[in-house]
Every structure is written in structure tokens, then in C-alpha cells.
């Protein structure tokens, strides 16, 4: 297969999972409340995730280890367990939010409460993991995820003022409501820099048998793929800024976020929104389920792999089964999916350094990445952005809890 075709396919597959309920909810909030002011958070998050995704691919290609695998080997079981607990907890909350997103999409279209849809959508997610192969999930998720381009179309139709949009790229202080501003910024960062994305990516690189020849492809895929996702997220923000902000609507419910597409695209837009929400969340849920199973299996030495039959990777299969079941139950219990989404994104930001620092050490360790170690720019960028996200989250989360 020609290199170009490989890159194109790779880009497609990496898009899936970037625009999901977290990205949609956080950028919609940002656009509605603050216009274009928070575009810099999307940009910063996208830059950081490009570095991290590229690193996870490079680690897998050169060392033939996944991140969790290498983490346990290099740092021992204690540090592995700390990262595992943090990852599993956050993945669980985000997975519940994605199931909530799917359920809400169905609620939008049918009028039946999302709590009734939690089990069916959870079951669908599980069934696809149980029956599917890695290639099917990788490609299926991304191809379906292309429907998110509806947001770009909507943004273009609304004719946004380019100078103001570009001005939003520059980080700035809050125009008003500082706590809400920083909390939203933190949530956007957490939505963009989701650890499950690069756990999934690194395990995928191993499942696809990458080696040093793939380093160039990896760079292209990570950069273009994640940039495309960043563009999608920015499109959501821009549409929210043009549709909701002038009306002073701050979305408290997903029905209001649906206005984003219903306004510019009419009735079709409403269904497009529901469809985008459903498909994007499904993709993310699949990746989350797998990423969690990888976290357990890679560090504990279990047999693993989506291409392996369930009976040959029993504990691996059990872990995603239990995760999905518990997450669905959380949604049946009726937790507000939108609030859960915003919170789990903020928590992701808070715990970023726990995930990124050991990972960075690995990426500079010759025993793992040989001569393909990190450039100092990658190190500096990831350290800076992780610290920024975490410190902001440390301040913003309690304040939001007290005030909101």
C-alpha cells in the first residue's frame, strides 16, 4: 500500500474519538458564554495532544511496548498502580458521559428519556467490542465520525468574522465571570488532552505491528489527524459563539446545544446534531472501553488484543465488560450527562501531570526510544501545558463547585 494511502487512512482513523461529547459540550459552553475568547484553549489543547499522540506512536514503534507496559517495566508496580487508579477512575466517568451523550442523542430524536437508552447504548458499545476487530473499530469509528463535518459546514454558513476568530487564538484574561471562564478553559483542555486517546493509539500501533519505518507516518497521522479534530472543535465553538452567545443562552441541556446545528441548517441540522452526537460518542465509548482494558492488561501482563477472541483474552474482555456495565448503570441512575461531562473533563486536566510526566521520562530514555528520543520542544511544550492545565484545574474546580 502506498505511503500516501497509508497516511490518509491513518489520518481518518485518528480523527475518531477527538470530537466527542467532551469536546462538543465544553466548546459549546465556551462559545455561548465567552464568544471567541477561549479559542486559545482549543489551540493549546490540540498542540499538546498532537505531541502526546505522536509520542505514544513513536514509543510503540521503536520499543514495541505500549505506554502502560513500559510504565510498569520502567517505574515498577507502585507508580504503575497510581497511574492506573487515576486513569481508570477518569475513564469510567468519561465513559459514562459518552454513554450519556449517546442516550441523549436518542432522547432528542425520540423524546424518550435518556435513562432508558443507557443500557441499550452501553450494550451496543459492548457488543461492538465483543464481536469486532481492531481494524473494524478503528476505521468504522472514523468514517462515521466524519458526520461531525456538519459543524464546519454550519460555521461556514454563519459567516463568522475572521479577525475576531483569529484574535481568539491569543490567550487572554476573562472578559467576565472569571471562575466560569477558567473552569471552561480547563474543561476544554481536558477534553482535548484525553489520556485514553493516546493509550488507544499506542496499543493500536502495537496491534498494527508498527516499527521504525512507521515513524514518519506516525508524525503525519498524529499532526494532521489531531489538527483536524481541533478544527472540528473550534467549529463547534464558533457556531456556539454566533448562535447562542448573541442570545445570551448558556446551554444547560443538550437540547440547547442542538440549536447549534438546527439554527443554520434547519430541521436537517437537528437530526445531524443528534447523529453526530450519537456517532461521536459511540466512537469515544469504544476507544474508552478498549483503552481501559489496555491499561489493565498491558501493566499486569494479561493476554490482550481486540483481534483476539474473547476466550483467549478473558481478563482483558472482562475489564471492558465491567467498565461499560458500571458506566451504563451510572447513567440509568440519572446523573446529568452534561454536568458529568464538564466535570470529568476538568478532572482529566487536574490529573494530567500524573499521566504525562512518567510518559515523558520514557520518551527520553534511550533504552526505550533509542535515538528517537524527544526533541526538547516536545518535552517543554508537554510539561508546560500539563502543569498549566493542572494548576488551573486545582484552582478552578473548587471555586466552580462552591459557586456553581
Amino acid at each position, binding site marked *: 500500500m502506498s505511503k500516501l494511502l497509508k497516511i490518509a487512512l491513518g489520518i481518518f482513523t485518528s480523527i475518531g474519538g477527538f470530537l466527542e461529547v467532551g469536546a462538543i459540550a465544553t466548546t459549546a459552553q465556551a462559545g455561548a458564554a465567552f464568544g471567541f475568547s477561549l479559542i486559545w484553549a482549543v489551540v493549546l489543547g490540540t498542540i499538546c495532544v498532537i505531541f502526546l499522540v505522536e509520542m505514544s506512536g513513536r514509543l510503540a514503534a521503536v520499543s514495541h511496548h505500549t505506554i502502560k507496559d513500559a510504565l510498569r517495566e520502567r517505574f*515498577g508496580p507502585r507508580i504503575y498502580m497510581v497511574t492506573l487508579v487515576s486513569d481508570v477512575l477518569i475513564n469510567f466517568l468519561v465513559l459514562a458521559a459518552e454513554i450519556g451523550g449517546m442516550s441523549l442523542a436518542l432522547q432528542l430524536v425520540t423524546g424518550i428519556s435518556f435513562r432508558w437508552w443507557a443500557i441499550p447504548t452501553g450494550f451496543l458499545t459492548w457488543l461492538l467490542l465483543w464481536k469486532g476487530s481492531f481494524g473494524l473499530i478503528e476505521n468504522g469509528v472514523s468514517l462515521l465520525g466524519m458526520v461531525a463535518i456538519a459543524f464546519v459546514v454550519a460555521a461556514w454558513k454563519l459567516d463568522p468574522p475572521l479577525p475576531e476568530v483569529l484574535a481568539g487564538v491569543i490567550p487572554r484574561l476573562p472578559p467576565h465571570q472569571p471562575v466560569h471562564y477558567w473552569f471552561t478553559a480547563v474543561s476544554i483542555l481536558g477534553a482535548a488532552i484525553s489520556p485514553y486517546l493516546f493509550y488507544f493509539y499506542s496499543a493500536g500501533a502495537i496491534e498494527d505491528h508498527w516499527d521504525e519505518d512507521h515513524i514518519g507516518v506516525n508524525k503525519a497521522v498524529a499532526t494532521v489527524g489531531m489538527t483536524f479534530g481541533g478544527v472540528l472543535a473550534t467549529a463547534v465553538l464558533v457556531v456556539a459563539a454566533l448562535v447562542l452567545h448573541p442570545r445570551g443562552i448558556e446551554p444547560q441541556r443538550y437540547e440547547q446545544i442542538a440549536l447549534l446545528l438546527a439554527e443554520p441548517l434547519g430541521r436537517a441540522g437537528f437530526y445531524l446534531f443528534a447523529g453526530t452526537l450519537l456517532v461521536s460518542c459511540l466512537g469515544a465509548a469504544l476507544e474508552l472501553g478498549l483503552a481501559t482494558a489496555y491499561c489493565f492488561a498491558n501493566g499486569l501482563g494479561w493476554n490482550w488484543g481486540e483481534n483476539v477472541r474473547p476466550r483467549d483474552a478473558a481478563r482483558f474482555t472482562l475489564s471492558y465488560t465491567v467498565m461499560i456495565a458500571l458506566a451504563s448503570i451510572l447513567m440509568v441512575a440519572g446523573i446529568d450527562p452534561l454536568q458529568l461531562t464538564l466535570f470529568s473533563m476538568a478532572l482529566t486536566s487536574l490529573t494530567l501531570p500524573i499521566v504525562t510526566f512518567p510518559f*515523558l*521520562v520514557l520518551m*527520553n*530514555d534511550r533504552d526505550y526510544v533509542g535515538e528517537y*528520543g*524527544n526533541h*526538547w520542544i516536545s*518535552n*517543554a511544550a508537554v*510539561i508546560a501545558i500539563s502543569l498549566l492545565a493542572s494548576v488551573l484545574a486545582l484552582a478552578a474546580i473548587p471555586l466552580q463547585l462552591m459557586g456553581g
Partner: protein
Amino acid sequence: MMGTARELRVEELLGRIVRTAAGRPVGRIEDITAEPEGEDYVVREVILGDVGLRARLFALAAQLPTFQSLGLGGPYRTRAIPWHWLDFSDPSKPRFVQPGEKP
């Protein structure tokens, strides 16, 4: 269980602090090296690092070129000590026993 009198467990030795008979800390066991000898792998050396939280944080920082260029992580060093310089009769309290030598 630390193993019978004839056995030691590597994972329980790593991280222990080696002290002199007087109790002065010499270093922290970072790793143990072994070499093939005939059919077996035989232990050769124990690698000791500095003691203390500050030292270990520096060790971590030293891994990242970013911090290195900032000047951190400089002073951390490790030394390789021959196995027979250490006494493991009490595995939880490794003793440095090479007399007359500065560790």
C-alpha cells in the same frame, strides 16, 4: 516472607538503604547486575544511588533533557559496588562491610 536463608528476592532488595555497621547510610539499592557464568547467571554488582527524597527527585529530573539544560538533576550519581562488599544476612537491613574503604 523474604525467602529462606538460602534465597533472596530481588524485588525486595531494590529500594533498600545500605548502611555501615555504625548505621550511616551509604546508598539506596537501585539495581543489581548479573553476568552469565557457564550455565548460570551470577550476580556481580549492586548499583547504589543517593539517599533521600531530594536526591531521588533530582534523579527523576535528570531523565529529562529539558531539566538538564536548566541545570537541575546534576548532582545525582550511582556507583556500582561488588556484591561481596555487602552483607545480606538480614535482607531488610543490608550492611556495607568492606573495611578500610570509603563508600
